[in-house]
């Protein structure tokens, strides 16, 4: 194992197809037009000294270290800013160039501390490297004059010196080491798109400064770390590097947080992570990341982590630490007893979107082959199940149609119910980059999300619809497209079912579906809807990105089909720059769905009633599989309350916190005789558990995740599991206690089994992933290298299906008792229920969940910014602090659900999507009033959490 060092070509790649041939140091080189001479040289293997250039940002030409000579031209141009030209002959090293470079370096070093031996960047400093490269041997100027290095110059205060800024918990800024190369500023602008950094002052006075000379933590900075990565010196450095030292080896792995699926180099010293550096060759992230993936991995070492298995007879007792064998025997015996007493169908399992494909696959296999039923579901139920259903109806596959890179070719971007800069930050940055290049933007969201207006990005149309009216909006947009003759008829004729199209067109064309007729339902001016529809239909390549704001509704599936209708009607499918793109929440939502986590589907979306598909699995597994669909999560809960469902195995999910209507969920859990929780921490669900199996983090096991673009990527073990086993091993141990006789020794064998049984994964193996880095399924004989863009020559189902999308108002209506609509979302620094991120320094950015309320609604209720307010719905009530803001419209309030004490889901109801039972998180009718502290429920819950987390002190001999 070695430390992976990527080549820095100095300037970004040119996309031109025209090739140019030139000579560099006598060697012939051919590169695309627009390539810099610096990059061309590097491609030919010659590294020209450089400081202000790096290939993640555009060339700047300030340091003058990269000078070259071009035969027949005067002077010594900078190779980073000089493009190649046909036939020129370049020299990268001459006595004149060497002298210039030494002079440049001498000046830099004369204003730079010489404490290399004790510097955190020692061994990883480009300034050091360049001093070596140019042969700098002595520095003639001393520090006596003006400098930025010392706090005092011969006893006098040095006003040019600035102290370190250590306000950010993850990285430090030491201005005394800055060479003002501007790389950080450009990274923040070009890569991240936040524009948090500027160079203040001029000439000798110029300094990097976050915002208006603020501390990093106080500034606009979102702590993505792009500037730290771009900095050639120790000026911006990870605090972990300062503490630990330079890494010695690295492994490529995949972020375990969101559906973007950024890949990282986990840079290690022994088994200790020194830092996570986004991998340049990562096809989802291209060397960028957000705060979560880069910095928030510390939860793996958090003191709350449970490392020993535990059991208890009843949930009122304290936990007892026991050996693995005892815990697993306890679990298996109870499972068997429950099935004997209440029947085969009285038990089930929930798979996790945070666990690997292999782990998810094993859990569903345990259910189908071991429990003998199909009672397996996944938390994707509560987020993107309508995507699966809706897209499958329309196109014949339930996945997003594009890869992330496709956005580079989009001319119009329509974002519906998604907040990419917070929930999918790295893709959000990509999208912003394309918007800065001129693509048009339409945002459909009740809230004024950041994209609507942020530095250098502004939505052309923001349609702030009332929560719960997506279907009406999509239909109104379709109305305009059909009535104004904007349908792409050739596409529809060739690709879609004609009868269904005509029925749909007749339906949307009805007057009652016009923007004018729906204006009062939607709360959006009809003219804006018309203009947005025209832009989407006629603005060139138009892509739709949508998120949970579309799916988590009573009509979630209908809205997804409506979105598919729009794309088909305008011909925006089957090529780059277009498509229908669900932005998945958790990292492996796609994978957990692919792996057969749903009660009606075997891996690869093969319906359980299909004889043929079942037979393949039955032969391989040597068991009979039930042909009837099993219980979905909400059905499990209902069934538990009826006393029919008694045992549940939950892997890596916190259903008590993440699922709606907390009271209902807790009543259901309390009614079960066995709840097995496998997780890192005593999560909220564990309050109701009888067996706790300690799980491990993504750093401690091998496996694969599949991101929102269907990209399968490896996670690699960089440290031994602190709890003793990878999660897949734990499932195997449990299965074997139930007599399954599994003998997987490596997750790669599980992947081989998946490939053997699932047509769309036939070509996937660890070997292929190790070789190619990643692959986007389907990957089989028809598409040996996977499929970045789907439906190129026709839809998977044959003809595209238009579906009539009749708007039905949700049951959650505002009335005199509950006059406001509550909608929920997430923020950048926290992740889902926050079990991991809350246990890192990320919490400093989001210490509690707050309620956003419009000034008008606040005033009516006497609520001031920062007040405690009570949120009441028909399901329950909770309290949190109010933030008065115009981000939300009047009549709408908004909160996040990252903290357990907020208990936002006490308020959400059991309404759900008609097709999939995906809960309607996004709309709850509520009342808000000023309050003076936590509700009784919150107090009781606090007590419960304390008592349910008790662990009995045992005599140290369990194992």
């Amino acid at each position, binding site marked *: 194992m070695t430390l992976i060092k990527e080549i820095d070509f100095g300037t970004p790649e040119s996309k031109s197809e025209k090739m140019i041939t030139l000579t560099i140091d006598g060697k012939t080189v051919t590169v695309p037009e627009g390539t810099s001479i610096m990059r061309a040289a590097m491609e030919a293997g010659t590294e020209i000294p450089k400081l202000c250039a790096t290939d993640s940002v555009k060339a700047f030409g300030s340091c003058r270290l990269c000078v070259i000579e071009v035969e027949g031209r005067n002077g010594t141009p900078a190779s980073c800013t000089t493009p190649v030209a046909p036939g020129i002959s370049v020299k990268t090293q001459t006595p004149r160039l060497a002298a210039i470079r030494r002079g440049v370096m001498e000046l830099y070093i004369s204003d730079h501390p010489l404490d290399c031996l004790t510097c955190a960047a020692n061994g990883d400093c480009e300034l050091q490297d360049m001093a070596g490269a140019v042969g700098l041997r002595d520095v003639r100027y001393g520090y006596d004059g003006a400098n930025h290095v010392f706090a005092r110059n011969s006893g006098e205060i040095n006003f040019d010196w600035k102290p370190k800024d250590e306000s950010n918990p993850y990285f430090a800024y030491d201005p005394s080491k800055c060479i003002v190369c501007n790389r950080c500023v450009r990274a923040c602008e070009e890569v991240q798109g936040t524009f948090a950094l500027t160079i203040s002052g001029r000439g000798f006075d110029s300094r990097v400064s976050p915002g208006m000379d603020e501390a990093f933590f106080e500034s606009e900075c979102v702590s993505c770390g792009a500037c730290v990565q771009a900095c050639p010196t120790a000026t911006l450095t990870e605090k972990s590097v300062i503490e630990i030292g330079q890494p010695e080896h690295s492994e490529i792995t995949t972020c375990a947080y969101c559906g973007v699926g950024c890949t990282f180099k986990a840079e290690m010293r022994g088994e200790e992570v020194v830092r996570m550096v986004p991998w340049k060759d990562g096809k989802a992230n291209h060397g960028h990341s957000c705060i979560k993936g880069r910095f928030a991995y510390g939860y793996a070492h958090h003191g709350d982590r449970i490392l020993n298995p535990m059991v208890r007879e009843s949930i009122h007792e304290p936990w007892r630490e026991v050996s693995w064998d005892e815990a697993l025997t306890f679990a298996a015996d109870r499972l068997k007893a429950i099935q004997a007493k209440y*029947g*085969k*169908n009285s038990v089930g399992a929930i798979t996790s979107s945070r666990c690997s494909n292999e782990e998810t696959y094993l859990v569903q296999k345990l259910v189908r082959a071991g429990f003998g039923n*199909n*009672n397996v579901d996944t938390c994707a139920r509560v987020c993107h199940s309508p995507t699966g259903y809706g897209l499958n109806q329309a196109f014949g596959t339930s996945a997003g149609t594009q890869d992330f890179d496709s956005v580079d070719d989009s001319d119009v971007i329509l974002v519906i119910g998604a907040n990419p800069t917070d929930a999918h930050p790295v893709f959000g940055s990509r999208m912003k980059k394309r918007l800065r290049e001129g693509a048009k933007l339409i945002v459909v969201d009740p809230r004024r999300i950041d994209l609507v207006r942020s530095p250098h990005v502004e939505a052309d149309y923001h349609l702030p619809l009332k929560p719960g009216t997506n279907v009406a909006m999509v239909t109104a947009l379709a109305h305009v497209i059909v009535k104004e003759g904007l349908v792409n008829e050739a596409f529809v004729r060739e690709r879609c*079912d004609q*009868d*269904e199209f005509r*029925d749909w067109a007749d*339906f949307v064309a009805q007057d009652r579906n016009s923007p004018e007729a729906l204006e009062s339902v939607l709360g959006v001016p009809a003219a804006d809807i018309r203009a947005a529809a025209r832009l989407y239909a006629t603005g060139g390549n138009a892509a739709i990105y949508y998120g949970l704001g579309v799916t988590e509704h*009573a009509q979630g*599936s*209908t809205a997804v089909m409506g979105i598919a209708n729009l794309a088909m009607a305008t011909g925006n499918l089957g090529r780059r720059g277009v498509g229908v793109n669900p932005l998945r929440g958790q990292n492996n939502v796609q994978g957990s769905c692919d792996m057969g986590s749903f*009660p*009606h589907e075997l891996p690869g979306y093969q*319906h359980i*009633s299909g004889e043929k598909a079942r037979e393949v699995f039955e032969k391989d597994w040597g068991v009979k599989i039930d042909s*009837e*669909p*099993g*219980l*979905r999560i909400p*059905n499990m809960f*209902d*069934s538990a*309350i*009826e*006393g*029919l469902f008694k045992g549940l195995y939950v892997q890596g999910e916190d259903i008590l916190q993440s699922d709606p209507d907390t009271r209902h969920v807790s009543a259901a859990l309390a009614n079960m005789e066995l709840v097995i929780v496998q997780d890192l921490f005593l999560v909220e669900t564990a309050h109701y558990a009888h067996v706790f199996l300690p799980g491990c983090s993504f750093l401690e096991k091998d496996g694969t995740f599949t991101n929102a673009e269907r990209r399968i990527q490896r996670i690699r073990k960089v440290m031994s599991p602190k709890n003793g086993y990878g999660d897949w091993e734990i499932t195997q141990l449990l299965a074997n206690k139930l007599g399954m006789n599994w003998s997987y020794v490596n997750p790669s064998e599980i992947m081989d089994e998946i490939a053997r049984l699932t047509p769309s994964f036939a070509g996937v193996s660890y070997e292929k992933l190790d070789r190619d880095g990643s692959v986007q399924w389907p990957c089989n004989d028809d598409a040996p290298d996977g499929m970045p863009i789907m439906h190129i020559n026709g839809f998977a189902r044959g003809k595209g299906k238009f*579906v*009539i*999308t*009749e708007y*039905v108002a949700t049951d959650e209506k505002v009335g005199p008792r509950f006059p406001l609509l509550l909608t929920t979302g997430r923020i950048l620094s926290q992740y889902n229920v926050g079990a991991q991120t809350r246990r890192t320094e990320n919490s400093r950015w989001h210490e509690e969940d707050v309620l956003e309320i419009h000034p008008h609604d606040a005033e009516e209720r006497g609520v001031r910014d920062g007040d405690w307010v009570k949120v009441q719905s028909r399901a329950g009530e909770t309290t949190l602090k109010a933030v008065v803001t115009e981000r939300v419209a009047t009549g709408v309030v908004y909160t996040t659900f990252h903290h357990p004490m907020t208990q936002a889901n006490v308020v959400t109801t*059991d309404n*759900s999507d*008609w*097709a*999939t*039972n995906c809960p309607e998180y996004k709309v709850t009718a509520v009342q808000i009033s000023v309050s003076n502290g936590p509700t009784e429920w919150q107090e009781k819950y606090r007590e419960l959490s304390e008592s349910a987390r008790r662990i009995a002190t045992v005599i140290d001999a369990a194992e």
Partner: protein
Amino acid sequence: MSHNSVDKLVKMANQIASFFCAQKSGDPVAGMAEHLTKFWEPRMRAEIIDHVAHGGAGLEPFAIEAIKRLPAVSTAA
């Protein structure tokens, strides 16, 4: 409790009906029946079939029609 759960199933069935009864192409009633067969666990189907046999209180006529087309379910085990 059991009463409560039928109420839930009725609500879900009506929601499903409101989607399918808006469809024009094909046979929307069959579409709804297929949906129930594909996604509802047998016990849930048995319960709603039974509810329809007892008059189907609260169900939309369209939903009743679709449920009537469901084959009987055996819920042994």
